[in-house]
C-alpha cells in the first residue's frame, strides 16, 4: 500500500443478487497498483477478477470500501462525473464490444475526443494508430480488419486521451495465438517505453507472463502474488488454486 498508487482498492466488497442467492464476488479486497507497472489479474472463473477490474475502473460500484484512482475517490462521483473521469483519465480494452462497426479505424480512435466535445487532431489520431502498427489502415472499417488489428485499434483508442491507467479485460480472449502475441507485445512495449500503467484480467498463463506482477484471486480475495512471472509458474499456481478453492487460500 502506497500513497503513490495510481489505483488503490481498500476493503472493497461487492456481491450480486440478494438473500439465499447472493454471490460474493469481492470479499474485502485491498490492493494497490503502482504507476508504470503492468499487472495481470488471474483466478478461476467466479473468483471475482472481472469484478475487481470493473470496480477499479469505475464501471461498477462496490457495496463497501474505497476505490481511489489517480488520487480521486470514485465513491464521491455521480454517474456523469464518473463517465467523464473514465473518458479523461482511463483507457479500456475489452474482449469484445470494442469498436463501432460503422466507424473507420481513424474515427473509432478519435471517438473519445469527440465524446469529450473536441475535434480530433488527425495527426494525433494517425500517431496513435502508428504507435500500434496500423499507420496505413486508418480508413478501414472494423469488418475489413483481422481480430488482432481490431484489438490494436481499440488499444490506440484507449491511448488517445493519454490515460493514467489502461484497463484490459481478456484483451486476447477472442484472438488466435499469433494475434494474441502481437497485442501482448504491444501492451508490454507501452509499459516499457512510456511507463503506461496497465491492469489486465486474463485466464491465459501465457498472457499473464507478459506482466510484471500477477495477482491471483479466489473466492473474492487476493490469495497470491507472483513477480516476474513465466507461463509455467503461473499455470502451476493456477492449478493449485483450482484445487484449494473451496478451502480458501493463504493470505
Amino acid at each position, binding site marked *: 500500500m502506497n500513497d503513490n498508487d495510481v489505483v488503490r482498492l481498500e476493503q472493497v466488497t461487492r456481491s450480486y443478487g440478494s438473500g439465499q442467492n447472493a454471490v460474493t464476488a469481492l470479499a474485502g479486497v485491498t490492493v494497490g497498483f503502482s504507476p508504470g507497472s503492468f499487472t495481470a489479474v488471474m483466478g478461476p472463473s467466479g473468483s471475482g477478477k472481472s469484478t475487481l477490474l*470493473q470496480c477499479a475502473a469505475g*464501471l*461498477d460500484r462496490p457495496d463497501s470500501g474505497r476505490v481511489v484512482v489517480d488520487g480521486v475517490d470514485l465513491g464521491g462521483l455521480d*454517474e*456523469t462525473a464518473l*463517465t*467523464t473521469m*473514465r*473518458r*479523461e483519465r482511463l483507457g*479500456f480494452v*475489452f474482449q*469484445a*464490444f*470494442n*469498436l*463501432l*462497426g*460503422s*466507424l*473507420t479505424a481513424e*474515427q473509432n480512435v478519435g*471517438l*473519445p475526443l*469527440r*465524446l*469529450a*466535445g*473536441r*475535434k480530433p487532431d488527425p495527426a494525433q489520431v494517425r500517431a496513435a494508430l502508428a504507435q500500434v502498427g496500423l499507420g496505413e489502415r486508418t480508413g478501414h*472499417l*472494423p*469488418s475489413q480488419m483481422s*481480430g488482432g488489428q481490431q484489438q490494436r485499434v481499440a488499444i490506440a*483508442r484507449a491511448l488517445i*486521451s493519454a490515460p493514467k491507467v489502461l484497463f484490459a479485460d481478456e484483451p486476447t480472449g*477472442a484472438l488466435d495465438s499469433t494475434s494474441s502475441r502481437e497485442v501482448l507485445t504491444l501492451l508490454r512495449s507501452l509499459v516499457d517505453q512510456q511507463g503506461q500503467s496497465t491492469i489486465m484480467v486474463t485466464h491465459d498463463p501465457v498472457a499473464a507472463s507478459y506482466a510484471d506482477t500477477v495477482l491471483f484471486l479466489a473466492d473474492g480475495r487476493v490469495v497470491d502474488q507472483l513477480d516476474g512471472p513465466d507461463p509455467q509458474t503461473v499455470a502451476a499456481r493456477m492449478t493449485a488454486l483450482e484445487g484449494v478453492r473451496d478451502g480458501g487460500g493463504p493470505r
Partner: protein
Amino acid sequence: MNGFRLLLPIAALSLRRRWLAFVGSFVALALGVAVMSAAGVLLNTTMGEDSLPGAPSLHKLVSFMAAMAGFVSVFVVSSTFAFAVAQRRQETAMLRAVGATPRQVRSLILGEALVVALAAAVSGCAIGLAVAPVIASWLVDQGAAPSGFHSEPAVLPLLLAASGGLAVALLGAYTASRRAGRVRPVEALNEVAVDKKVMPAVRWVAAVLFLGVFGYTLQTFISMPASMMADPQSRDPQTTPQWALLFDVMAVLAIVLVAPVLVPPLVRLFTGLVPLLPGAAGLVARQNALAAIRRTVSTATPVFLVIGLAGSVVGGTVAFSDAMAAQGRAALRAGYVVEPSGGAPALPADALRNLAALPDATLTTAATVRFDGLALPDQRPARGRPADLPIPEDGLAVDGDLRAAWNLSTEDGSLEDLRGKTVAVSGDMAKVFGWHVGDTLDARLADGTHEQLRLVAVVHHLLPQLPEIVVPREAAPGATAVSVAYLGTGAGPEQVAAALGGAARATAGADWIGAHNDRTTKNGWIAMLAILGPALLYALIAIVNTMMMSTGDRLRDFATLRLTGGTRRQVMRVVAAETLVVVATAAALGLIVTLLTQYATVLLIENRILETDRSAAFDLPWGTLAGATAVCLALALVSSLIPARLALRVRPLDLAAGRQ
C-alpha cells in the same frame, strides 16, 4: 422437410428470446391485415352498387381505400419482416458455424416467420372485423355513404387479406433468409455488418418498370382513350384527384425501390459538415446510417410513405381545386348566380320577373333535367362505341342565351344554334359515343317521353360547375322547375337582393364559383381521407414499430459508446441524431416523389381541365410536407428515445450482455 422438424424447437426458443423483433413483425402484419380486411369487408358490402348516379361512387371510394391499404401494408410488412431477419445476422452466422446448412437456416427463419405471421394474420382479421363498422359509420357521418350503410361481415375478404398478408410476410422473410443463408460462418465473429450490394439487379428492373407504369398511367389519363372516357366517373374532373392517386402510388413505388441508391448521397448531403465538427453524435449517426443502408431504408420507408403520400395527395388536391376554380371564374360571364334559398326546389316565377326588370338585365335560367338515355336512334351505335348512356345523367335545360351566362369555347358547331329541339354535349361525351355535330339523338327523359334532338355544339372542355348535356328549354318541356339563374345586370348587389325580396339567394359570380368549388373540394377531401386515412394511420404506427425495433438492434453500439466514455446523455444524443438523419432522408425522398407527382398533376390539369391556352402554376405543398415531417419526426424521436433510455438504465457492460 426433416431438417425443418428438427430445427423447430430452436425456432421456438429463438422466438422466446428475440421477442422484441417478433413483436415488431407481429404488430406490422396484424395491423396490415386489419386495415386490408376492414377495407375488404366494406368493399364486399358495396359490391354491385356501382350504378349510383353522380360523383365518386361509394364502391369506387372503398375500392381505392382497400387498394391503398393493401399497397401500404405490402410495403411495411415485407420491409419489417426482412428487417427482423437481417437483425439476426450474427445468430445466423453462429448457426452456420455450428454446422447448419444454408437450407436449414432458411427453413428455420421461414418457420419462425410462419409462426408469427399466422398468429398475426388471425389477430388482424379480428381487428379488421371490429374496425370495419367504425369506418362505415364515419363514411355515413361524412355523407360519403347513404344513411343505413353498414358493414356486413364476410369470410372471403378476411381470407384474402390474411393470405395476402401471410404471402407478403413470408416473401419478405424468404428474400432476407436467402441472404442470411449465404452468411459465411466466419462472419459470426465480426461485430457489425456493413451492407453490401443493397441494390440487386431485380430491384433496378422493378424500379424502372414502376417508373414506366407511372409514365404510362399519366399518359393514359392525359390522352384518355375513349374506352376509359366511357365511364363518366373517370372523365369527371372532380374525381381526377382520386384517379391521380394511381400514378402517385407508382411514383412512390419507384422511389422506394431506388431508395438504397438515393439514401447514401442524401445522408452524405445532410451530414456533410459533421466530420469537420467536434462532437460524437453527428459522426456516429452519419456513419451508422451509411454503413447499415438496409436498416436506414427500412426505418425511413414508413416515414417516406407518410410524407410522400401526404405531399402528393394534398398538393394534387389543392392544385386540382385551384385549377377548377380558376377555370370556373374565367368561364362564368354572369355577374350573379341566383339559387333557391332555404331548400326550396325552384326559383319563384315572380322573383325571376323582378330580376328581368332590373336595368340592363340579361337573365338565363336553367332547370335540371334527367336523361335516362341519349343515343343515336334505331340502335345503330358508331362502331366500337357504347350505344347509350351507361347510367342516367343530369343535364341542364336552359331558357335564354347560355353564352350570356358562360363563356364556353366549342370544338365543333356553335352554341348560337342551341335553339329549339337541339342539344350541346361535352367534347368527351361526343368522343365516347362517336357523335358529330348534325347527328340527331334520341333523348329519353325521366318522365318517359322521347325527344329527337339535333346535336349543334360540342363544348371544348367541360366545367365542374356544369353538366355534360345542355338543351334549350323547348327541348325538354317537362323541366319547368328553375334551379339556377344566371344574371348580368348594371344594378348593384342591394338592388338585386331587393328584387328577390328574400325569395331566393343571389351570389356574385366569383363568390359562387368559390363556394361551389369549396363544396366539391370538401367532398374530395372526405374521399381522400377515407382512401388514405387507414393507410396513413397504419404507416404512422409502422414508424413507431420500426424505430423501436431498430433501437433494440443498437444495444451493442450503446455498450461500446458507454465503455468508450460516452455518458447516457451522449448516447441519447446519438440516437436522436440518427433518428433525425433518417427522417431528413425520408423527407427528402418524400419531396422527390411530390416533385414528380406535382409535375404530373400540372400536366394533367393543363390537358384535362384548363383551356389549351392556359397553364397551371407548379406549386409544392410546403406546409403539408413540413407538417407531415414534423409529425413523423416527433413520433420517431419518441419511439427511439424511450426504448433507448430504458435500455440505458443498466450498467454499460450489462448493456451488451443483456441484449434482450
